[in-house]
């Protein structure tokens, strides 16, 4: 006897659907799965995203859609090799209602593979890989953070306006860096800029001396880079040490300085970056959020915490509309798509591909602090190449 795979999956989906609706109806707890790094180099991000979510949950009295929240966290260690097992731990093992995460795009790719087959509502809280709301987009997948295109494309215009027509690109050679550079080049060449050289550094290598010597010899108008975390801290310091800080203006997406500004010290002075958030944003939601976050955790909020915060607020809004019924399928998705938030980052809503449509800010480091110079691109919407939804 052979059962078609479709039939089997259909049966499985139905049973989970039914059990979810049953659990929703009886007011059972809302299980939110967290696939995030709590150890290793990205642990700080994992903790901030989680705490951002918890701060938002507390603001709603610990209940979303009338159901009490139960957090189920799995340390993904930013290890794509363990990702499928970890995702299954949450979806099949713990049977979470909603899956959130991850940070690392390799883990996200593994997650998307599984999530697209199971019918679990998934909210990507950091990984900016284009494919998530591009070729792999799906009705039950949303992203509350950013896409790599969004945080890089606007910088091209910024640099052109400042008169930098010859640029050198330097980046970690994996998807995040590659997509950032592709987006930048798209905008830069459109505006008549010329890329003198592209320096791809193997990820996560942090020995930059050889390449910095190259840049010094090339004498470009400006340099656009992608690095993040400790690597970004080292890069900025090495850049200054090589005497380039005063000679060649440095630009990048906000990850160049996020979370590592204090570590970079004076070396970061003058760096301009584009990002969908800045600590210094002057709106009521941001002030309130930063205060609550600091009170709850003793740490300062950052762009990662905001993603967590907005994730839970989005869920609160949508689940409120469907009275907590996570099995409500189409209604829940429609509710999510209709989300409108006054986020700490500014006005927040989803595009048709379920990526945030948001303002991208131009920031500069002045006096050791990130200062907002203005909006680099209003209502930036990821082109969602390859996504067949809503088209």
């Amino acid at each position: 006897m052979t059962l078609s795979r479709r039939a089997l999956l259909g049966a499985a989906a139905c049973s989970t659907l039914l059990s979810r609706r049953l659990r929703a109806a009886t007011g059972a707890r809302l299980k939110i799965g967290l696939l995030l790094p709590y150890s290793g180099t990205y642990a700080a991000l994992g903790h901030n995203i989680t705490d951002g979510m918890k701060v938002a949950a507390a603001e709603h009295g610990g209940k979303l859609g009338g159901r009490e929240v139960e957090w189920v966290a799995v340390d993904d260690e930013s290890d794509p090799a363990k990702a499928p097992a970890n995702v299954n731990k949450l979806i099949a093992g713990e049977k979470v209602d909603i899956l959130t995460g991850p940070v690392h795009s390799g883990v996200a790719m593994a997650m998307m593979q599984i999530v697209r087959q199971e019918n679990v509502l998934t909210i990507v809280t950091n990984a900016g890989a284009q494919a998530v709301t591009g070729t792999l987009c799906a009705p039950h997948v949303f992203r509350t953070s950013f896409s790599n295109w969004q945080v890089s494309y606007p910088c091209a215009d910024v640099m052109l306006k400042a008169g930098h027509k010859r640029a050198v690109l330097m980046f970690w050679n994996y998807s995040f860096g590659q997509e950032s550079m592709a987006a930048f080049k798209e905008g830069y060449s459109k505006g008549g800029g010329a890329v003198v050289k592209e320096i791809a550094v193997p990820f996560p290598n942090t020995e930059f001396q050889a390449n910095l010597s190259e840049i010094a010899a090339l004498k470009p108008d400006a340099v656009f880079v992608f690095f993040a975390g400790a690597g970004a801290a080292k890069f900025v310091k090495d850049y200054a040490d090589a005497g380039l800080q005063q000679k060649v203006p440095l630009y990048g997406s906000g990850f160049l300085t996020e979370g590592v500004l204090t570590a970079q010290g004076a070396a970061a002075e003058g760096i301009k970056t584009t990002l969908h958030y800045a600590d210094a944003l002057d709106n009521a939601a941001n002030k309130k959020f930063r205060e609550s976050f600091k009170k709850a955790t003793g740490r300062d909020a950052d762009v990662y915490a905001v993603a967590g915060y907005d994730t839970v607020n989005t869920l609160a809004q949508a689940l409120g509309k469907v009275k907590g019924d996570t099995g409500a399928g189409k209604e829940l998705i429609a509710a999510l798509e209709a989300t409108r938030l006054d986020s700490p980052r500014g006005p927040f809503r989803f595009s048709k591909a379920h990526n945030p449509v948001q303002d991208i800010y131009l920031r500069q480091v002045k006096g050791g602090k990130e200062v907002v110079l203005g909006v680099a691109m209003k209502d930036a919407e990821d082109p969602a190449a390859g996504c067949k939804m809503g088209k």
Partner: protein
Amino acid sequence: MSFSLVALQLINGVEYGLLLFLVASGLTLVFGVLGVLNFAHGSFYMLGAYLAWWLSERTGNLLLAILVGLPAMALIGLLVERLAIARLYLRDHLAQVLLTYGLVLLFNELQRALWGNDVHGVATPRSLSFTIPLGEAQTWPAWRAFTALCCIAVAIAMRQVILKTRFGMRVRAGASNAEMVEALGIDVRRVFSVVFSAGTALAGLAGMLAAPLTTVYPGMGESVLILSFVVVVIGGIGSIKGAFLGAMLVGIADTFGKVLLPGFASAIVYAVMAAVLLWRPRGLLGPAFEGR
């Protein structure tokens, strides 16, 4: 590439190599003399860096932090040797690899518990915060020059101690035939303890010197560990001279590889190691001590 660029890259390569040498020297010493494969060596590098950060925050001076941190690292090395490493002298390579691997996991958790997940910058002392111009395009921070000088000084000091002192003689003897040495009435155990302690301190020093350059972050010992193994193996286990040669080779190959063959840059170092081993299965300068 213009001549000046080549010269610049050479300086980059040598400087990188010198720091690698500092880390690798401790590893090759422990490996050669004690016969122990110490995977936790990278953790000592990390501990040194974190200590440098933590102490310089409290005292306000990195040099002072290093002066205080060095004996602290030596003490840690002593403790680890007595408690864990000493039990590995009679065991095989697998046991050594795995025990020290377990120590790595433990040290990682310790670091997280004590100092958290964030990235921290370490400020160089005022006296060494200037830059030296290298040609018209680039400058070289004084701290890097200072680090390079320290590494050279350590290399010379090690050579003197091993070749010209009584203690060095005991070290060489103990490595070549520990039982005989013990039969002659010399406490080999003490020699081993001191050597391991020194190895730990060397790794720690490297971490402390590198801290302002790399910033301090969780897991920072891993990449350094693998590279120092490569250096040790290329140079020949137990040979300080070999470690120096190997480090220079790795530093320069890596630097030029990045510029000339960017697609294969990461693999180059390993390709070099494989090539060296296939040509000279015991490393460039062979094992300095027999019987390993």
